[in-house]
C-alpha cells in the first residue's frame, strides 16, 4: 500500500518537475553522465592513461572522525587500472568505500580489492555511493579549503591531488 502511494506520489512529482531538476539526483549514481564530463573542464590531473578531476570533499561537522571525498577518474588507456586507496596528512588513512541501501538499511563497506577503473571508462565517486573515506580525521575539513590527498593506483602509482572542500551536506557538489 505504502509502495503504491509513494509510487503515485513520485509519478506526480516527476510529472511536475523540470527535467533538469531530476537529472541532478541520478548523476550521483551513474558513471559516464554529462555531469562527469563537466569535471574535465579544469583542474584535471593526468597520470599515465588516467585523467582525474572533479575532486571534492564534504566539510565535516564538529567532532566528526570521518570524512567523505569524491573524485571522477577517466581511463583513456587500453588497460584496466584500480584505485587502491590513498593517504593524507589530516587523516590516519584513506579507503575506498561503497555505500549502498538495502531497502531502508544503509550499508557501508570498504572495497577490499580496490575500485576497478576499466579501460576506456569513467568512474565517478559521488555522494550517495562510492566515496573515499577519510578515517581518523585529525582536524575538521572546512568548507572552502583545499585538501591535498595522494591517491594510489595499482598501475598508475601514486597521484597527488588537491580536493576542494565543499558544503557539509554534499548538496549540489555533483555538478562542480
Amino acid at each position: 500500500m505504502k509502495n503504491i502511494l509513494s509510487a503515485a506520489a513520485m509519478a506526480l512529482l516527476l510529472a511536475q518537475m523540470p527535467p533538469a531538476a531530476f537529472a541532478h539526483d541520478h548523476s550521483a549514481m551513474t558513471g559516464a553522465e554529462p555531469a562527469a564530463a563537466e569535471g574535465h573542464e579544469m583542474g584535471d590531473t593526468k597520470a599515465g592513461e588516467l585523467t582525474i578531476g572533479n575532486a571534492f570533499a564534504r566539510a565535516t561537522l564538529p567532532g566528526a572522525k570521518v570524512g567523505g571525498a569524491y573524485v571522477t577518474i577517466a581511463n583513456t588507456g587500453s588497460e584496466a587500472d584500480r584505485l587502491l586507496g590513498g593517504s593524507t596528512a589530516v587523516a590516519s588513512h584513506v579507503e575506498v568505500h561503497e555505500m549502498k541501501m538495502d531497502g531502508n538499511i544503509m550499508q557501508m563497506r570498504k572495497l577490499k580489492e580496490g575500485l576497478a577503473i576499466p579501460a576506456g571508462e569513467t568512474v565517478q565517486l559521488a555522494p550517495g555511493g562510492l566515496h573515499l573515506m577519510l578515517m581518523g580525521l585529525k582536524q575538521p575539513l572546512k568548507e572552502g579549503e583545499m585538501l591535498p590527498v595522494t591517491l594510489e593506483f595499482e598501475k598508475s602509482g601514486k597521484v597527488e591531488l588537491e580536493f576542494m572542500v565543499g558544503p557539509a551536506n554534499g548538496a549540489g557538489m555533483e555538478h562542480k
Partner: protein
Amino acid sequence: MMNYRAVRLGLWGAIAVLVAFLVYTYFYAGQSRRPDPVQLGSPFTLTDQNGAPITEAALTGHPSALFFGFTHCPEVCPTTLFEMAGWLDQLGDEGKDLRVFFITVDPERDTPEVMKNYTSGFTSRITGITGKPEDVTKLVKSWRIYAKKVPTDDGSYTMDHTASVMLLDRDGKLKSTIDYKESPDVALKKLRLLIAG
C-alpha cells in the same frame, strides 16, 4: 404433549448452541483477520546531548521526528540531518511544535558531548540521544530499527542501520516514515500531515 415440549425445548437448545457457535466464530474470525496494531517504541531512560535524563515522555504532547544514526557516518547521517534542518526551516512557524531527535546506534563512541557537538553543526532544533549501550539497544530494537556493527580493517567498526526517519504523532505513535532520499516535497507533505494530525 410432554414429548412435544421436550422436542421443542431440544430444538431451541440446539438453536441456542448453534447461535453461540456462530457468534463465537464470527468474533473470533473477525479478530484474527484484523492485524494487531504494531507496537513500536518502549519506555526508556536515556541521556540527552546535554547530559540530562530523557524518557519516553519527551515523545508526547507534540509531533516528533526520530532518526537513528551515528556520528562516525560520512554519508546518510549528515545528509539526513541536513535535510531535517532544511525541513524545519521551510516549515517555519508551522513546524514550531515539531521536535527532532537524533538517536545514536553507536552509544559507545557517541557520548553526550560528541552528540551535542555534532547536532549543533546542523541546527539547535535537533536533540541528540545516547545512553548505556544496553538501554540504547533496547530502544533501537523496540522501534524495529536495524543496527549492526561491522568491523573495519583498522580494528574499528562502522554501523549498518535503518536510515528512515520515523514520524510520531502527539501520542508518540508512529504515523509515517520518510525514507532516505525521499523527495523534499513528499517529505514536507508528510511533515505537514503529521503536524495537522
